[in-house]
């Protein structure tokens, strides 16, 4: 992917002479990074953007699937094949809202947007490309480790990278699956392990400079929490649904109040999962970019101020990177753990009726220990 590198001059970045006068638009840089993009932008040198074009795939009713590389748009300057990549000038000319910038829309022969077109943009965007890399990494790592397990047999000590991954797998099993899911934990281990490693590896890839803000995108966290939600719904037992729609031992009047709240809470759970991961990763990326941008904001005021701010900014950035490394693992753990807690609630067998309203509740059958994790104890 990197090998197909191609070079373009990008006009809106072209502040050849007037960079100081025009100033540095931090919000454009930051939002340009954290948003999705149809090309993988690496860096600018003297107004030239170095970027890798990515495939555009659009399905339109009646027209079928169109598939081409994003450099056909020439960064939104020309329409191609009845589609156009909206860029700043086009948006201002056609008075489109800002969030439309970067989107691909069907246009007619006069380069006007076809308003009622039925289409889906399934392009391999920067985030999708980053995800594909992470998927390949994940598959290669995990399958090679699994082969090592098969090759070495049961009673041989782990070695190499297997040794690094094994404690994590055991951690997910012993700290996430077993306490929350009880005896049936083996059924959910593949889901929990995949969730954990998928989120973690993408969090880490997102931290590499030039990487995509994949797990900080709400579409991604929405997809992950939708999967969790479906698993929660399908693993719900009689006891769970009974408590949801007809809480026992509650007067009728309160039931009228309680049942809607319970139903809302059922939907809030995946939404909370979705927003927590999205907001945490997004915030981390924004902070790092902001701190780096400070150099250029000061640099726009005066060159000396810019250079002077470099040590301060670097110190903050390094600190934030370390923090984000930690947050990447912690958020993967929290997402997985909460998914396990919610599934645990759904598969929980009938016992201790009085404890249900206090929070996420799970039961460890081995130790008989009760876990009560309330929403506000997990703030991060």
């Amino acid at each position, binding site marked *: 992917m990197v090998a197909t590198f191609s070079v373009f001059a990008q006009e809106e970045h072209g502040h050849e002479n007037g960079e100081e006068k025009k100033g540095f638009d931090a919000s454009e840089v930051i*939002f340009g990074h*954290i*948003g*999705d993009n149809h090309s993988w932008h690496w860096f600018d040198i003297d107004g030239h953007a170095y970027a890798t074009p990515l495939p555009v*795939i659009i399905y339109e009713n009646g027209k079928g699937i169109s598939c081409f590389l994003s450099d056909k748009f020439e960064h939104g300057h020309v329409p191609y094949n009845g589609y156009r990549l909206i860029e700043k000038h086009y948006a201002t000319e056609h008075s489109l809202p*800002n*969030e439309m910038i970067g989107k691909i829309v069907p246009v007619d022969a006069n380069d006007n947007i076809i308003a009622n077109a039925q289409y*889906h*943009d*399934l*392009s*391999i*965007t920067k*985030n*999708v490309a980053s*995800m*594909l890399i992470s*998927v390949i990494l*994940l*598959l290669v790592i*995990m*399958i090679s*480790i*699994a082969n090592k*397990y*098969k090759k070495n047999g*049961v*009673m041989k000590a782990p070695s190499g990278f297997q040794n690094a991954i*094994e404690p994590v*797998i*055991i951690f997910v*099993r012993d700290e996430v699956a077993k306490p929350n899911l009880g005896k049936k934990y*083996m059924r959910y*281990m*593949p*889901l929990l*392990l*995949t969730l954990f490693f*998928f989120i973690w590896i993408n969090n880490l890839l997102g931290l590499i400079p030039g990487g995509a803000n994949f797990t900080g*995108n*709400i*579409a*991604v966290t*929405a*997809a*992950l929490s*939708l*999967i969790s939600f479906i698993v929660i719904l399908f693993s719900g037992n009689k006891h769970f649904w009974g408590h949801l729609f007809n809480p026992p031992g509650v007067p009728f009047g309160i039931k009228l109040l309680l049942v809607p709240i319970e139903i809302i809470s059922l939907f809030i759970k995946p939404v909370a999962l979705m927003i927590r991961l999205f907001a945490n990763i*997004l915030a981390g990326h924004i902070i790092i970019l902001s701190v780096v941008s400070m150099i250029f904001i000061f640099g726009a005021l005066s060159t000396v101020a810019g250079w002077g701010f470099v040590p301060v900014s670097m110190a903050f950035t390094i600190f934030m990177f370390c923090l984000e490394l930690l947050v990447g693992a912690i958020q993967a753990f929290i997402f997985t753990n909460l998914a396990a807690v919610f599934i645990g609630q759904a598969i929980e067998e009938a016992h201790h009726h009085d404890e249900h309203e206090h929070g996420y509740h799970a039961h460890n059958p081995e130790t008989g220990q009760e876990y009560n994790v309330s929403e506000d104890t997990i703030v991060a």
Partner: protein
Amino acid sequence: MGLLIPDFGLFFWTLIAFLVVLFILKKFAWGPIVKTLQERESGIAESIASAEKVKAEMKLMQSQNESLLMQAREERTMMLKEAKETKDKIINEAKEQAKVEANKIMEDTRNQIERSKNAAMTEVKNEIGKLAVEVAEKILRKQLANQGEQHNYVQMLAEEIKLN
């Protein structure tokens, strides 16, 4: 804000990619890994349990050995004691017997000496008696050489007998 509106394309690809990864990893990675981990853990637990058992057995054997050793030691002491006693007894008996034997020998010797002495004394007495008789004979022979004297002497002897 465009940030809060999920993009359909990305949502779609994420969903598909995640599910594909989930199924591939479930079949080729998580299944074998989790199974192996479980087997290994139970294997280790079994090994530890059997080691513990062997250790307990060893301990039992050791204590048995120790008691056996103790018994042997006791027996040895007893045997030694007995041997010593026997030895002492034999020595004492031998001493006793030797003493008796010696006494007997002494007694015999003394008797022998006594007897020899007596015999010697008798012999000496006989010899002395013989000598005295001889001397008396010689003296008498000499004195009784004349008739008068002979007569006187018989007279004297006859008087002596009369007096008796």
